[in-house]
């Protein structure tokens, strides 16, 4: 009797394919095909509107030619610094804000939460332009505000100095996006059961000790997710630099990151003519860098983080 069911052929479950199809088709059309198109394009070059296969020549040029490679390593280092600023400033502040917000004694916490999150939903054009105006030495409010507290001597045209411009832009980006780590950590903190916290209270683990010994270990998985989101976001960044400093990422390329470097190369800017093949090579490198970073995270860090069931 039991064999009868086993022998029956399983019907093909068409509905799975049917339900998956829309997502797969859309994703393929807008993500997978362009990705492979870019990778393919990076292996070609053109002369007299004639496209021909050059193998890895574009990459040889990118790393071998002194001017190309100087630009590339400059952009990569700037990008890394941009990422470091976010990891050291944005994420700790986000965690700190979330810890404050989740404190039951805090009044108006819903207001603070919204207020801190609002810059995230603003357009990067508005953010870039607004901060450019604020920090302008000619008509900005920053010099006057510093004057009010007697610190005018500290003012410098931060966006106009090579040594400060990238850090300044990094901090503007932190200001804009700090709401995201805050929200994710806030959600993770809320998911810790009240009783675990109460048990800690009974054990005498209160205040900062409670945060370090109980809450922080329990939100580590969320911090891991935030780190990788920050990494991917930063290495794909473009918009803030473009809107604040333009495609030349001045002064003197000091704020040039991979995104702006790619944009100039691919589409051309001012006297530089666009080169889609070199642009694709840069885009492929960005893809590889991000892929490597995500893989390192997934295979080394993610596997060691435990998710706790309460």
């Amino acid at each position: 009797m039991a064999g009868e069911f086993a022998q029956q052929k399983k019907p093909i479950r068409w509905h799975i394919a049917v339900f998956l199809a829309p997502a797969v088709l859309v994703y393929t059309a807008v993500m997978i095909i362009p990705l492979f198109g870019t990778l393919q394009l990076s292996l070609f070059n053109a002369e007299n509107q004639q496209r021909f296969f050059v193998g890895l020549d574009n990459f040889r040029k990118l790393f071998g030619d002194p001017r190309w490679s100087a630009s590339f390593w400059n952009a990569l280092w700037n990008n890394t610094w941009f990422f470091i600023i976010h990891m050291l400033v944005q994420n700790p502040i986000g965690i700190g804000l979330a810890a404050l917000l989740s404190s039951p004694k805090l009044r108006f916490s819903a207001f603070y939460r919204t207020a801190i999150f609002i810059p995230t939903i603003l357009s990067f054009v508005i953010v870039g332009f607004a901060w450019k105006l604020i920090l302008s030495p000619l008509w900005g409010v920053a010099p006057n505000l510093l004057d009010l507290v007697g610190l005018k001597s500290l003012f410098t045209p931060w966006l106009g100095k090579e040594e400060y411009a990238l850090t300044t832009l990094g901090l503007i980006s932190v200001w804009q996006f700090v709401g995201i780590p805050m929200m994710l950590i806030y959600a993770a903190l809320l998911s810790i059961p009240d009783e675990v916290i109460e048990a800690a209270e009974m054990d005498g683990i209160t205040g900062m000790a409670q945060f370090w010994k109980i809450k922080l270990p329990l939100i580590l998985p969320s911090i891991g997710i935030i780190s990788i989101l920050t990494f991917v976001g930063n290495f794909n960044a473009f918009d803030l630099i473009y809107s604040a400093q333009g495609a030349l990422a001045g002064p003197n390329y000091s704020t040039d990151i991979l995104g702006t470097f790619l944009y100039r190369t691919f589409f051309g800017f001012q006297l530089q003519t666009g080169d889609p093949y070199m642009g694709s090579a840069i885009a492929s490198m960005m893809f590889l860098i991000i892929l490597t970073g995500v893989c390192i995270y997934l295979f080394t860090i993610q596997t060691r983080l435990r998710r706790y069931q309460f």
Partner: protein
Amino acid sequence: MGSLTIDKVKKSFGRVDVLKGIDLAVNDGEFVVFVGPSGCGKSTLLRIIAGLEDSTSGRVLIDGADVTVTPPANRGIAMVFQTYALYPHLTVRSNMSLGLKQIGTPAAEIDRRVTAASTMLSLEPYLERRPAELSGGQRQRVAIGRAVVREPKLFLFDEPLSNLDAALRVNTRLEIAQLHRRLKATMIYVTHDQVEAMTLADKIVVLNAGRIEQVGAPMDLYNKPANEFVAGFIGSPRMNFIDAAKLGEGQAKTIGVRPEHLTVDTGSGAWKGTVVHAEHLGADTNLYVETEKAGLLTVRIFGVYGAEAGSTLYVTPDPQRTYRFDADGKALA
């Protein structure tokens, strides 16, 4: 080293009065069980004793010292939660020792206490495991162990058995009873299960709607319930309540008689009735009998009794063991 006095404690959440003035004295070494239906305020009262909740008014005294505004950790108490509330990222050993480390107890002393507690609760094989690798019963033992190592003046248990399955519940109940005997510590235990209350308690506090209905030893509550609520709450199956008017009783409003104090006979008896349903449990048999005079009655017969639905029986109460209640539900002498 562990007496507790609760003095006129009231608690309101907004306009809702959850506790309407509780006075209670618990002696050193007593096992006191708060029992009552859900929403009666028993957990709130426990949390006020623990310091996790502030009372609206009134005082809590431990060993004569007013601790009403003392933070939980400084009250010398330990609490075991219904959901265990273990620290999921720490091993069993760290779970037990974290509180001691926090107050700077020497490592040798921590080690001694953890070893003693884990031996007592047979947790030695699991000391290096994390809570996720333990069963529900083991987790609850770790939670109890975490309370034991603090050597508190007062143990608080908030429905510690509710998340365990029936077989484990009986075992863990036994362990808690043994723990009390061994430590001779004062314990306060909250439950909605009157069987747990009856089996564990030296003293039961029956709460209902934010008030104490009766305080007493389990057998006092069983034999001399102060009112209809306690009579109905203590004892399983529930006491039968019969409208006194139907039986022609003058003074009382309601007559109560426990299922085990009713006898049945096929030939003659006080109230004739029909068996509606019979539950055969082996050790005893519960019959639901619809009587002409007294309405639906539950009868508990010890041992096996062969009665089927539809058969006719005569039910007779034990005249020594009926209870009479007035219109307010108070027991009449």
